[in-house]
């Protein structure tokens, strides 16, 4: 049993270290992502916490970075405020900034359920 316990403890420790490192790097990335999200003007259509507005909801259940890159770089042809979005080139938002934005959106907590909000009960 001893080797198993040791291995489990080691795994937990390593996992903890990795998680801690991940959180440590995610926090500044998320903070920077929020700054970029506001500076570039993503919030104008998507809301400051990605809740949606004129544009789609981005959080929670944030799309993976690869999918987000397709949307942001490609946009939608024939874009107007009512549908789709314009393409954002790297001169406006770099790849690393976009990754931080994705991290920021993914870090946002899910909202309460409607029945848990008194004002939204029928």
């Amino acid at each position: 049993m001893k080797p198993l316990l040791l291995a489990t403890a080691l795994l937990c420790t390593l996992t903890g270290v990795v998680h801690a490192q991940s959180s440590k790097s995610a926090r500044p990335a998320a903070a920077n992502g929020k700054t970029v999200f506001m500076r570039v003007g993503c919030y104008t259509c998507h809301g400051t916490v990605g809740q949606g507005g004129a544009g789609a909801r981005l959080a929670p259940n944030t799309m993976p970075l690869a999918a987000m890159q397709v949307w942001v770089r490609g946009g939608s042809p024939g874009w107007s405020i009512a549908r789709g979005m314009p393409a954002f080139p790297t001169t406006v938002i770099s790849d690393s900034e976009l990754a931080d934005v994705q991290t920021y959106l993914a870090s946002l907590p899910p909202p309460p359920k409607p029945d848990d909000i008194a004002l939204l009960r029928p």
Partner: protein
Amino acid sequence: MEKKPVEPESVDRRSFLAGAATGAAVMLAKQASVAAAQEAAPTQARAEPSAQAGKAAGRPASDYMVDVFKSLGMEYMFSMCASSFMGLHESILNYAGNKSPRAIACTHEEISVAMANGYAKIDGKPVLVCAHSTVGAQHATMALFDAYADRVPVYLVLGNTNDAANRDGEVFWVHSAQDPCALVRDITKWDDNPASIAHFAESAVRAYKIAMTPPMGPVALVVDDHMQDEQVPVDLRVPRVAVPTPPAGDSGAVAEVAKLLVAAENPVIIADRAARTPEGLKLMVELAETLQAGVVDSGHRLNFPTRHPLRGGSPAQADVVLALEHGDISNVARQARQRNAKVLSISSTHLFQRSNYQDVMRYAEVDMAVAADAEATLPALIEEIKRQTGDARREAFRQRGAKVAETNRNTYERARTEATYGWDASPVSTARLSMELWAQLKNEDWSYVTGWVNWPLRLWNFDKHYQYIGRAGAEGVGYYAPASVGAALANKKHGRISVSIQPDGDMMVAPGALWTAARHQIPLLVVMQNNRAYHQEVMWFQREALLRNRSLDLAHTGFGLGDPNIDFAKLAQSMGVAASGPISDPKALAGAIRRGLQVVKKGEPYLIDVVTQPR
């Protein structure tokens, strides 16, 4: 002379003929109201109006003009004061004792007209709006265009010095026009520049009649400033007015529309300005329930209760679309043609259009166009549908209605879920703002007089006609603040609580409306939707710059309303309106709304500045 509101006659649903007559009955009730006002109006004599009539009776013509306006049931005069209608203004104050019409002071002609727009949409009839012929009309035009595009009766009187010999100096010259109504002719249904007092009498009642006949719209009448001071001919009486009954669809067309609707498997009703009156809302419900068809409310009036199970539906999947007093349905018609579906239009706009301004919309290739007022046509249409519906179809209708109701429930649940996103965000989400308001309004007699935010229509329970009057007809910025004040004034006599969710950019166009609300004790809760930008334009700038592969760094230059931030509470307070804010924390909203409603219930306006999410 205060008038009680006229309750429309109820529909006798058992009789086709009686049903068909109901639209006329509603109009007759309104006519009776005007006729009663006319009976009560003072008259000097009972001869026919005539340009040659009589000699001096010792009182100024503007007194007589007031009698005419009084006879038309004009309860108020909204105006920014001006010398060119001073005679009329003096008569309202000193001859009529500032009652019916009562003078309401405005700080801009755009405010006067937009207030009249909001008032008419609640009360169903116009007030008197007075303005200078040149500089006043020029200020008034955008608000007049909103009313024109929105089919709202606005009654505009323009003071002018017609006779050049009477223009006493430079200002009189620049404040006079040869044809004052030329400026507004493209955005009014009718205008005139009467050459005599008798001519004025006829034109004044004719203008009212035209404004009130669907499709309703603004009218303009010039009153010469010197004519206001002339002596009233002794034998001049106030002409009677009989507002025409609204045009109903002919029986053959109505029967054909009914036949197509009864045979349809999946009909959908689109309504934009169909419910002109409370009775119209009831008829819309009866139509939908008879057919068990979904109703898409395009939102320029409350055409259908928001929580009714039949609210909703997809025109893109319908085999028959019935469009009532609709806006642009060209896409609906194009898609329908591709799948061999039919589109039927009943609208009074088929009867009247002007050329210049393009509110005519894209041409829609419909299968039937009935040139008639939808509300007046509904009783006959409902009865005809009932007559043509057998038991088998009724069962099919029932099953169809159950499906629409299920979709409606899902739509409502989706709206509740979507409202949770950003619930605790700061700035405040527009969903949170809306529901904080609803929590304190839902047990009151309320009226959501204006607002750009769509959450109330998704989540509140609107089931009375006066609870919603739509948006700016021409989407002119500067409508919401004054139209809210006008609508709130119309609601005041009923003791209703008027509430607006007020866009910040719109408020900055016409903030003087707040002073009018304070000066005349008009109860209105103004809740700012303060996103600190002309936000729509910010998004358009982003689009433009990105299409050109250029920077977004200056996206708020020329579009933002921050730096410095506008303190709307102080703005309101400076004009005598109690206020609180700015509020960015959603948890602080409930208390502010509670305090605001206490003030409004005492008969005063109150403003809450809420810093909100962009949308």
